Every structure is written in structure tokens, then in C-alpha cells.
């Protein structure tokens, strides 16, 4: 697997300027012919089997989805299936702990075991994660991932329990989360998915689940590199104001960074397949005299402990306003995307609090930004919550009868971004 990191920025700052923005594009490419040894995959599928899964055929659909996922497992992938209620129980392998190698026979047996799931009990997501962690912890060399499906809020344990479990899993495995129905809580699954570097989505229609699960398994098995970190160096007296992933989804990673030394910090990025991700960095530097130049940041990709690629973020002070006021198109694009996501979050929060005027303003702004940036998927989701009168001016009316699933889909997917069109 080869990695490249490239910086997009306008390095020119006006006199007294301090804010250095850059968008960093990291691209991973599979080795293909020159091969390296493929990293083994270890996957735990966590299926909610709490009592509420028995309603609306949800469990039956989850079983079908799990069957589709199991069918996708390549021979040799280590896997296990855990069902979750107010505790975790082993579905497959049935008695032993740990993981089992995928073979035609083990897949048949796993599907037979999953087919016998029954819906009963409460929901304690932290305990499910604990169970997955204990299985995956023994497979350090593998690319370790979990897929978690739930339909309810984490009612059988405290928020502290959940946070402690998530913290214990950090660095052990990556976890994609899916919420089915409308009784789960976006903030809880977002905590799990974002801390454990996975994806989050709503499954509004249970019929869609099988395809989604197959795709997740395919993606999980496509991962070839684990333990990829971005190392940020910034000079003395400079401050990393934020470091966000901005594509394919928006996620503030500033708090995920761990200090390597006084000027260097590492941000974990989880596992990589053939893919590309964008990051937005803001470094605040002490102003220098006009004509001066400095290195504002150095961004290195650390793959399995070694530097795989690096890119420089510079600052140059100038009196030429035409140069210093130009905003890099990539930076402008993602600034807009971030604004769109926060307008949606603020609008939905205001709506929930009954503050209709703020909700209307924010969701109107969101409709406007979504239109400007060609974010059609978000615009469609917005249309389920507000009636868009004029997207150009951000004029919207709140809808009275909003389908809860539409609202949750908007909340869940508001952090997805579209890539900047030009290449900088």
C-alpha cells in the first residue's frame, strides 16, 4: 500500500496575519502486483437482539443482512458474531470465545446460528463493545473491525459505562455503526463511530440492510493498512487551532491527537483501503514582518511507525492584498461544508427546543449552502424537514409533520461532505 499526502493552501498572509489554513489530501493506493503480504482481517458482527428488535420484522431483516454479510466473508477471514441485549452473548462460535476462520463450513454454521436469534432483553452497547474487544484483542497483527447494528438507546447502562467501553476499544478495533428504526440515539452511536474511527448511518428501511452490510464487509476486507497516523509538527509559539477530516465525512479530530513531543502530535486515522481522504488544518502562528517566510506545519503520514510521505504548510507575509486575500478553493469549499453541517446541527437542535425562528434561519442557511455547493443528497434530506421556498435566498418553512426517520437521516448524514470539484 502506497500513501501520498498533498497540501493545498494559499500561503500568503497579509501584514499581521496569523491564520494558516491548508487542506491536505491523503491518497492510499493498493500495491497490486508488487504485493506485500496482505494483512489478515478480523471482523466481529454485533447484532442487537433486544426485545424491541422483535417489532416491525427488524430482527428478521437483521438476520437476512447478517446472512448477506457472512456470505461475503472470504476464506481465512477471522470472524465472530455477537448478539447484544443488556449483555453480550456469543452467537458464533457458539461456545468458545474468540474468533473462527471463515470457511465454507463455518459460514454455513454461522448462518444457522444467526437464524436462531431471538429478540429479548435490554440494550447495553458498552458491554457489546467489551465482548468484541476481548475477541479482537488477541489478533494484534490483523486489521480489526466491528460492525454494530442497534435499534435502541443505550438504556441498560450509564453514559459513563458506554464512554469507558468506547475508550477501552480505542486503538483495538474500528467500528462501523448502523441505527435501525428511529428509537436509537444519534449522539450515542456517533460517540462510538467517531471515537472508533468508523462510519455511522441510519437504516430507515430495513429492506436496505442486506446490501449495506455486504458493502461494509467488502470494505472491511479491502482494508490493507492499519495504524495509519497523521503526524502534525508546528513550530514553537504556533498553535494547532483545529484539525478536521473533511472528506468523505466531517469529523473534528483535534481532540483525538496525542502528543509525541512539545511540537508534534499524532492523529490516528484507522485502517485504509484504496481511498482518499481530505483534512483541514488551521495553524495559528505568530505574525512576522512582511517578506518573511516560515514553515507553519509539517504533516507526515506514519504507517506502521515509519514516515510514508510528508507535506509542508508554509506562511509568507505580503503587502499584496490581491495575493493574500485569495482563498484557496479547497479551503473555501470545505469551510462551506463545515458551515453547512453546523447549520443543520444548530437548526435541528433549535427545532427540538421549540425555537422556530432560529431553526428556520439555520435550516434556511443550510438549504442555501447545500445548493451552492451542489450537495444534492443533503438538499433532499432537508426537504423532508423543511419546505424549501427559495434555496437561493435560504427561504424555508418548517414542516409540521416530519417523519422521524427523515429527521434522523438528516442528523446522521449531515457530516457527509462532497469533494471539492477542482484539483486545487
Amino acid at each position: 500500500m502506497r500513501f501520498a499526502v498533498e497540501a493545498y493552501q494559499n500561503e500568503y498572509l497579509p501584514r499581521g496575519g496569523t491564520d494558516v489554513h491548508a487542506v491536505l489530501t491523503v491518497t492510499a493506493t493498493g500495491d497490486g502486483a508488487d504485493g506485500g503480504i496482505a494483512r489478515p482481517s478480523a471482523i466481529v458482527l454485533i447484532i442487537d437482539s433486544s426485545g424491541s428488535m422483535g417489532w416491525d420484522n427488524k430482527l428478521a431483516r437483521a438476520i437476512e443482512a447478517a446472512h448477506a454479510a457472512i456470505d461475503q466473508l472470504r476464506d481465512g477471514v477471522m470472524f465472530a458474531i455477537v448478539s447484544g441485549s443488556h449483555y453480550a452473548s456469543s452467537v458464533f462460535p457458539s461456545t468458545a470465545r474468540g474468533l473462527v476462520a471463515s470457511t465454507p463450513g463455518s459460514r454455513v454454521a454461522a448462518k444457522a446460528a444467526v437464524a436462531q436469534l431471538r429478540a429479548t432483553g435490554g440494550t447495553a452497547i458498552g458491554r457489546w463493545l467489551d465482548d468484541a474487544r476481548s475477541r479482537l484483542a488477541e489478533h494484534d497483527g490483523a486489521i480489526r473491525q466491528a460492525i454494530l447494528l442497534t435499534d435502541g438507546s443505550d438504556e441498560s447502562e450509564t453514559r459513563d459505562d458506554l464512554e469507558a467501553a468506547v475508550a477501552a476499544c480505542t486503538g483495538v478495533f474500528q467500528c462501523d455503526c448502523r441505527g435501525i428504526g428511529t428509537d436509537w440515539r444519534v449522539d450515542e452511536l456517533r460517540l462510538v463511530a467517531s471515537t472508533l474511527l468508523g462510519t455511522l448511518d441510519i437504516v430507515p428501511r430495513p429492506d436496505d440492510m442486506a446490501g449495506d452490510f455486504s458493502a461494509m464487509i467488502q470494505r472491511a476486507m479491502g482494508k490493507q493498512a492499519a495504524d495509519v497516523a497523521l503526524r502534525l509538527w508546528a513550530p514553537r509559539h504556533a498553535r494547532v487551532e483545529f484539525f478536521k477530516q473533511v472528506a468523505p465525512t466531517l469529523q473534528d479530530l483535534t481532540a483525538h491527537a496525542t502528543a509525541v513531543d512539545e511540537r508534534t502530535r499524532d492523529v490516528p486515522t484507522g485502517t485504509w483501503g484504496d481511498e482518499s481522504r481530505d483534512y483541514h488544518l488551521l495553524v495559528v502562528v505568530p505574525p512576522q514582518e512582511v517578506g518573511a517566510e516560515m514553515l507553519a506545519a509539517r504533516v507526515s503520514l506514519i504507517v506502521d511507525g515509519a514516515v510514508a510521505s510528508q507535506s509542508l504548510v508554509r506562511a509568507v507575509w505580503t503587502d499584496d492584498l490581491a495575493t493574500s486575500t485569495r482563498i484557496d478553493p479547497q479551503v473555501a469549499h470545505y469551510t462551506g461544508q463545515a458551515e453547512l453541517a453546523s447549520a443543520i446541527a444548530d437548526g435541528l437542535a433549535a427545532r427540538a427546543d421549540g425555537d422556530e425562528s432560529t431553526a428556520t434561519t439555520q435550516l434556511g442557511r443550510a438549504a442555501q449552502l447545500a445548493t451552492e455547493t451542489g450537495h444534492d443528497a443533503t438538499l433532499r434530506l432537508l426537504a423532508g424537514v423543511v419546505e424549501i421556498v427559495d434555496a437561493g435566498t435560504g427561504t424555508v418553512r418548517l414542516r409540521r409533520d416530519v417523519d422521524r426517520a427523515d429527521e434522523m437521516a438528516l442528523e446522521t448524514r449531515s457530516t457527509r461532505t462532497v469533494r471539492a470539484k477542482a484539483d486545487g
Partner: protein
Amino acid sequence: MSLDLDLSCPACAAEALADDEFCEHCGTPLGLMDDAARNHVEVRIGSGVGAVSDRGLVHRRNEDAVFVATTGAVAVAVVCDGVSASAAAHVASAVAAASVGDALVEGAPMSDALAAGAATVQTVPWMATGAKDAPSCTVVALRWDGVDATIGWAGDSRAYWVDAGGAWGLTIDHSWAREQVDAGVMTSADAEADGRAHAITRWLGADAPTAEAAVIAFRPPGAGRIVLCTDGLWNLVTIDSLARVVHDADATAPAVAAALTRLALARGGHDNVTVAVVDVPGGNEEATT
């Protein structure tokens, strides 16, 4: 095999109950304990289907029963284990295996066949003295039509899929130990160590809890064998040994059934041992990926 439940006294022809040791009319011993014909039963249908049921080395009689049949491309196998705490357990298992098997051969869906077996067991005449429970047995049944396999069960008799990759349990025991583990009350090790570990929670019999039949269907992923057995086998033969013996390409299904039984007897044979083996030929390639 068919249902020929003749319980009459050989001396006076008076009607007897299934759990009568002596004729209530003339006092003649009814030979309840000496059903020598069941001490060792071997059934083979060609090289692809075979079964063995053996009394074992400790028990006085064999309360397990087995049924195998083929019709066209369809193979049917049924294994039952009479519950020792129940009256006339040997009769319960015999009539259950035969009626479930007959129903499957006639094309009944698995859940209907299990229901037929349950109904038949309830017709076994017995004397409710309080010393024993109503006649009862476990069941595990297979219908394999050359493409798809359907397995139904109640209790702790098991089905395994065995291929080059190993042996895999397809059924989940209806047992106290398994339920404790599933309920999160105990670890697997603690539950297995408990005296109640093997108490079954589902069976065929008049006092059986009503529950939805446990039925699974699957398409075998390639060449392999399906093994049905009672706890007299799986308590003594580890899953790894089972995989090794069953995945012997040179041995026929009946030879494998006999080899598994010998292994259980060599390891103590403290219970009745019953095993049925059905070959699943390869050439089912579209299902392998």
C-alpha cells in the same frame, strides 16, 4: 421402519402399558429390559447414508432410536434419545423417530414432522405413578434433497456439518447450560461444570414446554457430510476428533457411523450412542462462494 407398537403380553395377549415390566393380567415378565434387538443396530443405504445405534457399555438397554430412508434424491435421517427420567423412554424414542421420519419421507415440512412426532409420543400408554415423567425423547432430524438441507430438533441431540475445513455445530442445544450462558448468567465453563448442565429444556412428550420448533435450512457449501448424534456420542468425542473421523474421504458414510460409535465406546460408552451420517456430494459449486 414403521410404527408397529405392539405392547400386548406375549403369554395372554392382554393389553400392556409401555412402561409395564410385568403383565398386569397374568404376571408374565414383559421383557422391558431385554430388548436385545436394539442393543446394536446398524442401517446402511448404499455408501452415502449410514447409521448406528448402540446400547453402550453401561446401560441395560438402548433408549436411543434412529431412522434413515432415501426416496429419489431425498435422504431423511432422524435420531432420538429417550429421556431417562421419563417412563417408557425407549418406546418414546422409537415411535418418535419413526413418525418424524415417515412424515419427512412423505414430504411434510420439518415443523409439521416434528409436531407429528410430538403427537405420536403423547399417544404412548403409560402409568402415571409420579415416579417418572410422561414418555419423552429428544429429536434431531434431517431432510436433504440434493440441494438444500433442513434440520429440526428439540433437546440436546445435535447436527454437525463436516467438510475439509472442520466440523461445525448447526444446532444449539436446548439445555440448561446453554440457556444459562445465553442468559448471561454464567460462563460456559461454569455452566458446564454444574450438575444441571445437561438437563434439557425442550423435548417431545406430553409435558413438553410449548415452543416454536427449532428449524434451520441451509445450502451445503460443497462436498461434506451431515452428522446427527445423541449426547452419548458428543459427550465423548470432541469436535476435532469428529471432524477427523468424518472427513475420511475413503470411508463410506456407514463406515464413518460405525467408526464414530467405536470411538465413543472406546472412550467409556457410558451412555447409549447413536449417530447417523449422510453424504453431501460435491458439484454444488454455485453455493461455494
